[in-house]
């Protein structure tokens, strides 16, 4: 395992480069003094302080010795000292650190306290202290740097072994009465050996730099011995005469230090594994878990597979192309502009270019929102609900792009509104409430300030007026003692209160449209109800339309008058709440409804689920996206995607086989 990791590390360009440099350094350390030793010691006073030449690549020093040869010959001592001081740090630091895993709690706490105090103290001061005691020279430098690195190793070993000691198998070993020492050697040590080796590798680089610094200051290696640091130090005195005398040895210090560091870093990265890229467009992260009720894996009695290859009855070829952009010509979207329309969109699509091609989470939606209306958008996670509203709000995350045939908001074509005006328009009239109130409020700012800034920016109110308005709005969303609350930070609020504050933020302007994306999902059930009641209250008081997104049909039916059901980036049904409860037309909506347990649900039978999974957005079937999971699907469904057509009145459905007036069969 370890050797394969080494191989993988070598496969990266940095890993390869680091390995080559380290190998070259090791070869130099062996042959350096043998090949260049005599030349490095040869004194040639007449040739003193010469600049670089072919004969003397780095020039000569004050008594005419060749600095290049001295640099080569110094490799061995420089590396030796670095390795020695690392060994001191490892040899003392690791035992001190890991024994804590088996110490009693009180002793452990005091040792840990000493270690963390020592870690916070600059190592160089400690090294100078040791160096003064031992005396100037290589021994003092090695001990000084080595001892200065002990706290770091102790801390690392302590953290690592504490994480191992907390694991179940160590606890099991302890209950079995295995001695602490045995636990240490057989359970703790083998599991932390790898990260410690890694840090050890990197530390050779650090101690090389540290010892070089001491030698450079004249506190480390002294004549007649010399290492890179002392060569650099003596070279710097003649920096005007011959810069190479200091730059040459300096380059070797940098090269060696970098190589050891890069080696350690590359090994660590390979150990950690490459990060897996998530869906960049995925909305609120927690939705997946919350939506599990809908997306559960097929239960034993799931009917899908059995029906999927049912007999064909309709001629698939004869259907007109149920293209994406057909709806705008439909009656609901024709020229007559109802004056009370808040929003009117046709053929809205959202695209995300990715490594594997373009993904389209929203595909050709058309719908309207009337003033004061409460609309719900339901669907499983990944159906494109959040992307739809983010596109409408002009807030799509990078690299998503929205396109539409027409998008009118408050009677204005959004594309024709100049940017500053658009900011003002959306900032004052459109409010967004997101799923997780805990992360929606900025933790670093007082709650009142976060409300007030909306009107300060958009309505030019002064700070005090804005704060007064914020207090008023907080009171309106039934937050007790709003004056005090406005001065508090979000962490002093409860979850329900934070969501109220978010709604109050939306009320700061003159909202015409409130978009609430899963506003109750992160809250517990009683608080959920209060928030829904508050949204209804706000809707009635301010006349703002409310769009609420949820994966939970029952939540939506509690608040909304009309429901848009989404599946795989399309609206499959646009239906009033009464009709929805009476019996929807689309098989998917029926399945969603059937999977909601209520008081009459027979608890002896397993909960109803929808078999199968939603299709991957980059591998949509040619026909209806729900066909693979639909009990009614036939050849026609698999061949052509049905358009969203009016069924009766405002009720629209995209299905070749809509249920009409027939009872629900779950």
């Amino acid at each position, binding site marked *: 395992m370890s050797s394969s990791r080494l191989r993988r590390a070598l496969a990266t360009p940095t890993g390869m480069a680091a390995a080559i440099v380290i190998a070259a350094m090791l070869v130099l350390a062996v042959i350096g003094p043998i090949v260049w030793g005599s030349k490095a010691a040869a004194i040639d006073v007449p040739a003193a302080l010469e600049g670089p030449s072919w004969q003397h690549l780095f020039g000569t020093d004050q008594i005419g010795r060749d600095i290049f040869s001295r640099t080569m010959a110094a490799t061995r001592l420089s590396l030796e000292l670095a390795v020695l001081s690392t060994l001191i740090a490892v040899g003392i630091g690791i035992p001190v650190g890991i024994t804590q895993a088996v110490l009693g709690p009180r002793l452990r706490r005091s040792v840990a306290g000493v270690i963390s105090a020592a870690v*916070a103290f*600059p190592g160089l001061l400690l090294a100078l202290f040791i160096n003064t005691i031992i005396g100037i020279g290589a021994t003092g430098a090695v001990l000084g740097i080595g001892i200065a690195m002990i706290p770091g190793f102790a801390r690392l070993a302590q953290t690592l072994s504490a994480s191992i000691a907390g694991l179940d198998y160590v606890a099991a070993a302890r209950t079995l009465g295995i001695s602490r020492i045995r636990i240490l050697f057989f359970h703790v040590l083998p599991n932390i050996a790898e990260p410690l080796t890694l840090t050890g590798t990197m530390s050779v680089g650090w101690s090389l730099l540290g010892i070089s610094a001491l030698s450079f200051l004249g506190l480390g290696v002294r004549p007649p011995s010399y290492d890179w640091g002392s060569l650099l130090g003596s070279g710097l005195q003649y*920096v005007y005469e011959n810069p190479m005398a200091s730059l040459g040895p300096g380059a070797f210090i940098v090269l060696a230090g970098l190589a050891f560091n890069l080696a350690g870093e590359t090994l660590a990265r390979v150990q950690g594994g490459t990060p897996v890229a998530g869906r*960049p467009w995925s909305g609120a992260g927690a939705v997946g878990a919350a939506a599990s009720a809908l997306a559960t894996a097929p239960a034993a009695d799931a009917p899908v597979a059995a029906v999927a290859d049912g007999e064909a009855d309709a001629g698939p070829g004869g259907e007109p192309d149920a293209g994406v952009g057909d709806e705008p010509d439909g009656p609901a979207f024709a020229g007559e502009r109802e004056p009370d329309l808040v929003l009117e969109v046709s053929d809205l699509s959202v695209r995300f270019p990715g490594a594997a091609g373009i993904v389209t989470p929203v595909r050709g939606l058309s719908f309207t929102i009337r003033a004061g209306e409460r609309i719900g958008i339901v669907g499983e996670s990944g159906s494109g609900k959040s992307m739809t509203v983010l596109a409408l709000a002009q807030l799509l995350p990078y690299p998503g792009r929205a396109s539409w045939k027409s998008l009118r908001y408050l009677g204005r074509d959004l594309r024709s509104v100049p940017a500053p005006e658009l*900011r003002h328009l959306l900032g004052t009239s459109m409010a967004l409430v997101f799923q997780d109130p805990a992360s*929606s*409020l900025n933790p670093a700012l007082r709650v009142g300030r976060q409300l007030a800034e909306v009107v300060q920016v958009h309505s030019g109110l002064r700070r005090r007026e804005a704060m007064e308005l914020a207090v008023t709005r907080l009171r309106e969303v039934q937050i007790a003692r709003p004056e005090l609350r406005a001065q508090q930070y979000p962490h002093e609020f409860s979850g329900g209160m934070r969501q109220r504050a978010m709604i109050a933020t939306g009320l700061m302007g003159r909202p015409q449209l409130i978009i609430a994306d899963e506003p109750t999902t992160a809250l517990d059930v009683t608080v959920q109800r209060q928030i829904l009641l508050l949204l209804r209250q706000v809707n009635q008081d301010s006349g703002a339309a409310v769009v609420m997104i949820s994966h939970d049909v029952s939540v939506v039916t509690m608040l909304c008058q009309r429901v848009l059901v989404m599946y795989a980036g399309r609206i499959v049904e646009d239906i009033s709440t009464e009709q929805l409860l009476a019996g929807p037309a689309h098989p998917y909506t029926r399945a969603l409804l059937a999977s909601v347990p209520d008081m009459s649900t027979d608890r002896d039978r397993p909960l109803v689920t929808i078999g199968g999974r939603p299709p991957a957005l980059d591998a949509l079937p040619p026909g209806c996206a729900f066909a693979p999971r639909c009990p009614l699907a036939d050849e026609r469904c698999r061949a052509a995607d049905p358009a969203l057509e009016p069924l009766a009145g405002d009720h629209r459905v995209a299905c070749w086989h809509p249920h009409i007036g027939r009872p629900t069969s779950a």
Partner: protein
Amino acid sequence: MAEATTAVRRHHTWLMFLARRIGRLVVSLAVVLSLSFLLIQFIPGDPVRLALGPTAPASMVAQQRAALGLTKPLVIQYLDYWHDVLTGHLGTSIVSGQPVEQIIATSLPNTAELVGVALVLTMILAVSLGVLAGALTHYGRRPRLLLFFTSATSILNTIPEFLLGVGLVFVFAVTLKLLPVAGAAGWQSLVLPALAIAIGPIAGLARIVRVQTDVALGQDYMRVARAKRLPTRIIYLRHALPNLLTAALTIGGLLLGTLVASSVVVENVFARPGLGTAIVQAISQHDYPVIQGVLLVLGAAVLVLNLLVDLLLSALDPRSTLRES
């Protein structure tokens, strides 16, 4: 009524935090002071003989021993040391005969100036570069810029301050002849040493700030700020920056110790008269009272600065005090 209780409780938490921190500082200072005292006791052989050299007459050595108080019992010496330090006396240099506190008084301002300028440079440059890089590369934008940023910062972060100093001397003083190479006269002599100390921390901190920026920009509250259609300036400065600053200041506080230590080395590169040049000279001359004094001052400075950073953090981020308790 309830408001008052909450306020009192918050005040109380903060006072407890302060008391605990000051208690910890006092203990650490006592340890540093004791170590500084013990330094001269740990020296193998006769420290005074080492300092005065093998040719010094025995009478002079004995006289100096008595002057340093080394003839008294250890416990008395220790108590004397406490008394002296607390009354502002740090001993007398064996080499020059100057009082150590006087040596420190002349060199401390130079070091403080260097560290201060380097710290300001670090915070300003690291935060602005990190935020800029984070904003430009957020959501996987401009991958090549990100690669350049990470490799450049990781290399600069590895090069030690004294080598950066040598490099800067070569480029700006020797080749371009723009800035002075040594001394402590005027702001020009401050530029290169401050850069030499600050470049590594800037690179390291900028990397962290970039990651923090990336994280902060992905937070829900940033989406809310955009949903409020606030101007970009406010989105970044008011909403993102305070959330980055806690992390940046925490690391910056840890870096203060590093900056102090680096100044010791870099002062020697640029022959800048400060605590660093004083201590290195004292070590090579075996001038133990000076070493003790400078180590004590540097150690205490690091501890006090760490405390100040902690207090600043708790004032900026009210949650950090609560986390502590």
